[in-house]
């Protein structure tokens, strides 16, 4: 319980730091007033313009000091209000935009991850169980090629092959059609190519990771033990070897959140999908900072949450983590646990393995 509270506090602290840095950077480097009003903002000789400027300043609290504005924003953010967009036409709430765009990106991400993990696990198990065989070597080269192919290049290739040459998949993307269905008008089909772009790259990266870990696990004595007990090959691989080999994969899945967003950004832009990625690019180009800030916060929060989940997942996968016998998330460990604690634990471990040769 205590650990959970500590962790939550740390999470809040990190989000605060991130929001402050982003907020400050945007306000210091950019010019919010100009972004809201356009050229009028510079027209300080015209009394009419000055009036508009004053109004706008008041409306957007630009007359207040930076810390105060941050405090206002943070107060709103905590209650789930992302503020209003910087826009010359009225004050559309950021939340509306997020509500409209977020589901699309979420669908895309989930599909991409399902493809990635779903491909990577059997792929890695097959490769690792015949390490250095021809099958393994071919699959290693394939994985290597996909890892070396940037998202945007893969997007172009897949689009060229499936949409243009074969014409199997749609080349137009709409925002409103229902998800479930199998025609070009359904998002399931529309998302297929973008998800495949993200998923294939991910699958290759995960396969490489999992294969290495599996090979290490397969050399452990307990695998020999399982074999000598007469456990079938399939069971040895999936029941005995896979679970203890999942650590790095989970870590990477969790750390990769921000990279995935980057990938989504590129892919959405290329396929012209109205999602968060396109939203953030548009917002940056129009210097619509509240939108950028909101999306940064969403991604950062997702990153934290996923890392926290990964942390819990380690415990599910490996009972040693539950009893603190094995280190959990490397990314969080350094922060949550005091160094002296770690040293003491290591000491105990040293003592108990003292004569292990």
């Amino acid at each position: 319980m205590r650990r959970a509270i500590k962790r939550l506090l740390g999470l809040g602290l990190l989000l605060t730091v991130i929001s402050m840095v982003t907020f400050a950077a945007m306000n210091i480097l950019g010019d919010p007033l100009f972004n809201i009003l356009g050229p009028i903002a510079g027209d300080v000789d015209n009394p009419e313009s000055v009036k508009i400027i004053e109004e706008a300043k008041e409306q957007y609290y630009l007359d207040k000091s930076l810390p105060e504005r941050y405090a206002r924003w943070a107060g709103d953010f905590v209650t789930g209000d992302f503020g209003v967009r910087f826009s010359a036409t009225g004050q559309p709430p950021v939340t509306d935009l997020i509500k409209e765009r977020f589901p699309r990106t979420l669908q895309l991400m989930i599909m991409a991850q399902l493809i990635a993990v779903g491909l990577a696990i059997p792929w890695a198990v097959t490769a690792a169980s015949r390490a250095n065989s021809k099958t393994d070597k071919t699959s290693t080269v394939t994985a290597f090629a996909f890892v070396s192919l940037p998202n945007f290049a893969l997007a172009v290739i897949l689009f060229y092959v499936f949409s243009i040459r074969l014409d199997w998949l749609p080349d137009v993307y709409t925002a409103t059609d229902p998800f479930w269905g199998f025609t070009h008008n359904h998002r399931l089909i529309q998302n297929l190519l973008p998800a495949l772009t993200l998923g294939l790259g991910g699958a290759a990266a995960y396969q490489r990771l999992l294969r290495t870990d599996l090979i290490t696990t397969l050399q452990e004595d307990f695998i020999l033990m399982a074999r000598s007990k007469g456990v079938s090959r399939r069971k040895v691989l999936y029941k005995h070897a896979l679970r203890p080999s999942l650590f790095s994969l989970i870590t990477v899945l969790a750390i990769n959140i921000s990279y995935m967003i980057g990938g989504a950004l590129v892919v959405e832009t290329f396929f012209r999908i109205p999602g968060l990625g396109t939203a953030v690019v548009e917002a940056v180009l129009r210097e619509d900072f509240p939108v950028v800030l909101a999306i940064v916060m969403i991604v950062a929060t997702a990153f934290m949450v996923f890392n926290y989940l990964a942390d819990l997942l380690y415990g599910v996968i490996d009972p040693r983590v539950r009893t603190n016998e094995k280190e959990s998330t490397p990314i969080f460990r350094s922060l949550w646990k005091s160094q002296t604690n770690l040293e003491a634990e290591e000491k105990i471990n040293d003592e108990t393995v003292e004569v292990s040769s």
Partner: protein
Amino acid sequence: MAGSGTAHLRKDDPNILLSVQNLVVEFPVGLRKKVHAVTNLSFDIAEGETLGIVGESGCGKSTTARAVIQLPKPTSGVVEFEQKDLTNLKGESLRNIRPDIQMIFQDPISSLNPRRSVFNIVSEGVNIWNETNDDSSEDRVIEIIKDVGLDVQEALVKRPHEYSGGQCQRISIARALVLDPKIIICDEPVSALDVSVQARILNMLEDMKERYGLTLLFISHDLSVVKNVSDRVAVMYLGKLCEIGDGDLLYEEPAHPYTRLLLAAIPDPNNKHSGNQDILEGELPSPINPPSGCRFRTRCPRATEKCTVEEPEFQQIGNSDHWVACHFPHIDGDNKQDEIIWPPQEAIEGSE
């Protein structure tokens, strides 16, 4: 055992090189708990002597070795080297004394830097302390590399991973010898080696000891090995000493129940103790929450109420160099036992 007390220390002996008194090493775990790795440990080593510390895993023998070299500093207690208390020394003054106290480790892999040539590793000590780097220091390095039976030309170009485990242990010994130390602390130096190699390293340690006038603190879990190299032997259990004394005496007539059990368990074809029918019961208690009184009482066939309440202090057996920390030691074939409480349930609860 696990007794406290300092009766066994040779306080008036002018030749004492290292004297450890009431050494305590604790590590915090979690918020309020502590591992009592070493508690009130006292021993001394005279110049030119080899003290063997023997004990099973988890008894704190390696922690003791680290505490003696102040890496990390012990929680409390005195580590007197040539009448200077090392625990009070810091920074430069501690650094200046370091060349006199060297250490050899168990793991030949972990104790050598994989990216440096063997010659470079051995000459490290000389390079640290001899800024001028004259020829005489290089001669010494060469001499010592030859002494430990390695080829100098090879040592110049080869890295540790090109050597076998036994050879790596020689490199460690050479590195320790280069600064002409007064005492070397050997932490399980042969337990990772094959038996035939082990013999060579042990012989070499004896040779080096003679040639360079060394004092050794030799730590191992192997009773036969410890007996072979040591003048005096100390038996350790759960952070405390049970018995200490002249090696031949202690192995001939073990007085502490734990020592007897240890000796009886050795699979040596000519083990005269193997007939001992006592059985070591239960599991090693946690060092986080050690038993009250005598720490061995939860597994001791002779334990009584007294052992729960009162911690035994070291007492001398006759007039010989043989000390035991036990209320009911096996002396002169004495086998009398007080009422046995077994299993000592209340005792376990009492220690909470």
